[in-house]
């Protein structure tokens, strides 16, 4: 085809593409369309697919045939035009208009966004705190382990703090009072204007841990239960403090009627080598501590890395000049919606039902996502630009090094090590590993920039040039 192609770029990184298709090509496409139709239409006197062009024309009409032909022409002429102007659409292109005679298509082709980072980003300074694992953090982790191995047994005694008790009964919130609570005694306090009570809980059996720090903290709830024994009943009421964590409850009066069903004591195992052995392949408590420290450190480091990168992106997005075609946002929304759908379907919802229940439709869902989509698109673009400007890249030797590092964890089994090596060298494993390496590098560079220790860009450029020459 010899197309007449005309392009014009607007200020939103969109290319208005006008493609004129010569009449000869339209005619040819019409013949092809007729051939196709002949196979589908039954014409008396002809076997399927055998009717000649002129018969088809007189049967379906020239207009119809032309519109079929035009439809068939859209895709190939668009592709050819793109090739001619050597452009790859960044997002879903759209067909805006068709003029039938002479045949002219008008497309809008989203172009790759342009990202200009603020020149001064390398001058950004921030304190980057070194990752440190305190003894307290380890102690806390150890306590979690103790709790996991705790021994719970029923006891015949009064409730003490730290016990696990079962109880039945209910708790109700007095109706939202009109600034009239002062004393906390009234059982007959329900005589306020609105007679509705809200149920806080109403259970046949519920197991509660008697810890005043956790269970309705700041209220005498736990206090009221201490000292009771199995079988005891008690009614009590109190007012939630004004600064209670759950806003809905703050300042409200609540009354409870409770029967204690049974009392169980909890015994935490002692912190010793025995516990360490219970927890896994550890010989001594010291080993367990060490491993906990390592784990916590790795975790904290990766969090710190993320924080660094996210912080860098925050700073960059703020100052960067980003121009992107609107279709890019739509694509982003598409993928968000698709994710959401999948998630819904995994949890057993039908998408349409979900929409109905939420009182939404596809349009409003998309609108809700729009802001997020724009944000994440911008962040991604800036991140990409950051990688490019900083000449960050993952090299084969980086990957090899990382693989060897990983493989150490798999012990001495040579077969297993080889298969893991294979896994990390191809496909998903490789992608995962390289993006991890890239993240590491980004975090390191972001840190360097914040500390004012980033290598000179000119030097990086020279190094890269040298690399390419090899």
């Amino acid at each position, binding site marked *: 085809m010899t197309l007449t192609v005309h392009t014009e770029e607007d200020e939103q990184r969109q290319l208005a593409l006008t493609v004129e298709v010569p009449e000869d090509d339209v005619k040819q496409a019409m013949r092809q369309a007729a051939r196709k139709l002949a196979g589908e239409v039954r014409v008396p006197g002809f076997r399927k697919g*055998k009717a000649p062009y002129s018969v088809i024309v007189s049967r379906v009409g020239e207009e119809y045939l032309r519109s079929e032909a035009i439809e068939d022409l859209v895709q190939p002429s668009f592709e050819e035009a793109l090739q001619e102007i050597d452009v790859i659409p960044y997002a879903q292109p759209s067909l805006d208009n068709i003029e039938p005679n002479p045949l002219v298509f008008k497309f809008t082709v989203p172009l790759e966004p342009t990202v200009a980072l603020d020149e001064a980003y390398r001058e950004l300074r921030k304190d980057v705190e070194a990752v440190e694992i305190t003894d307290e953090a380890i102690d806390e982790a150890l306590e979690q382990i103790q709790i996991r191995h705790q021994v719970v047994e029923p006891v015949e005694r009064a409730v003490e703090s730290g016990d696990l008790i079962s109880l039945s009964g209910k708790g109700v919130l007095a109706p939202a009072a009109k600034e009239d609570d002062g004393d906390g005694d009234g059982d007959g306090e329900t005589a306020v204007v609105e007679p509705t009570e809200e149920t806080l809980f109403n259970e046949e059996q519920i197991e509660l841990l008697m810890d005043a720090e956790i269970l309705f903290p700041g209220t005498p709830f736990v206090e009221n239960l201490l000292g009771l024994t199995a079988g005891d009943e008690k009614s009590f009421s109190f007012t939630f403090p004004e600064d209670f964590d759950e806003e809905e409850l703050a300042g409200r009066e609540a009354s409870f009627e409770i029967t204690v069903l049974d009392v169980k004591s909890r015994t935490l195992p002692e912190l010793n080598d025995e516990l360490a052995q219970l927890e896994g392949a550890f010989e001594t408590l010291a080993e367990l501590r060490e491993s906990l420290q390592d784990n916590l450190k790795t975790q904290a480091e990766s969090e710190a890395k993320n924080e660094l990168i996210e912080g860098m992106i925050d700073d960059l997005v703020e100052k960067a000049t980003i121009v992107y075609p609107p279709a890019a946002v739509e694509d982003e929304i598409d993928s968000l919606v698709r994710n959401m759908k999948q998630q819904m379907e995994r949890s057993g919802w039908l998408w349409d039902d979900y929409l109905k229940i939420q009182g939404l439709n596809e349009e409003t869902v998309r609108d809700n996502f729009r802001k997020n989509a724009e944000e994440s698109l911008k962040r991604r673009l800036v991140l990409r630009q950051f990688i490019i400007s900083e000449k960050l890249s993952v090299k084969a030797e980086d990957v090899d090094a990382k693989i060897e590092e990983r493989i150490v964890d798999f012990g001495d089994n040579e077969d297993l090590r080889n298969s893991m090596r294979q896994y990390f060298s191809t496909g998903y494993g490789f992608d995962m590993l390289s993006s991890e390496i890239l993240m590491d590098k980004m975090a390191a560079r972001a840190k360097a920039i914040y500390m004012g220790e980033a290598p000179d860009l000119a030097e990086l450029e020279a190094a890269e040039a040298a690399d390419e020459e090899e």
Partner: protein
Amino acid sequence: MQIHWRNIIRRPVVTEKSSYQADLYNQYTFAVDSRANKVQVKEAIELAWPDVTVEKVRIANMPPKRARRWRRVTTRKPGWKKAIVTLSPGDSIDLFEGV
């Protein structure tokens, strides 16, 4: 018996076979009045398409088709006369005019 030329040619026969013959042998097929003979067909064609010359006319009587039975109902298609008209080389008729 006189039949007006307009009434001699009833309709062109457009089928795979007739298109094939038109393309390769310059022969055009028509359904004609059952009473018409070769000479009348020739005259009628030349009157209807003044710029063609008829070289030869072949005529066949197509049999009626009966016995298309569905239970007791018999359908019946009447017979008709088919004329295959050979034109002089270079002449042609557009069969789809007015169809």
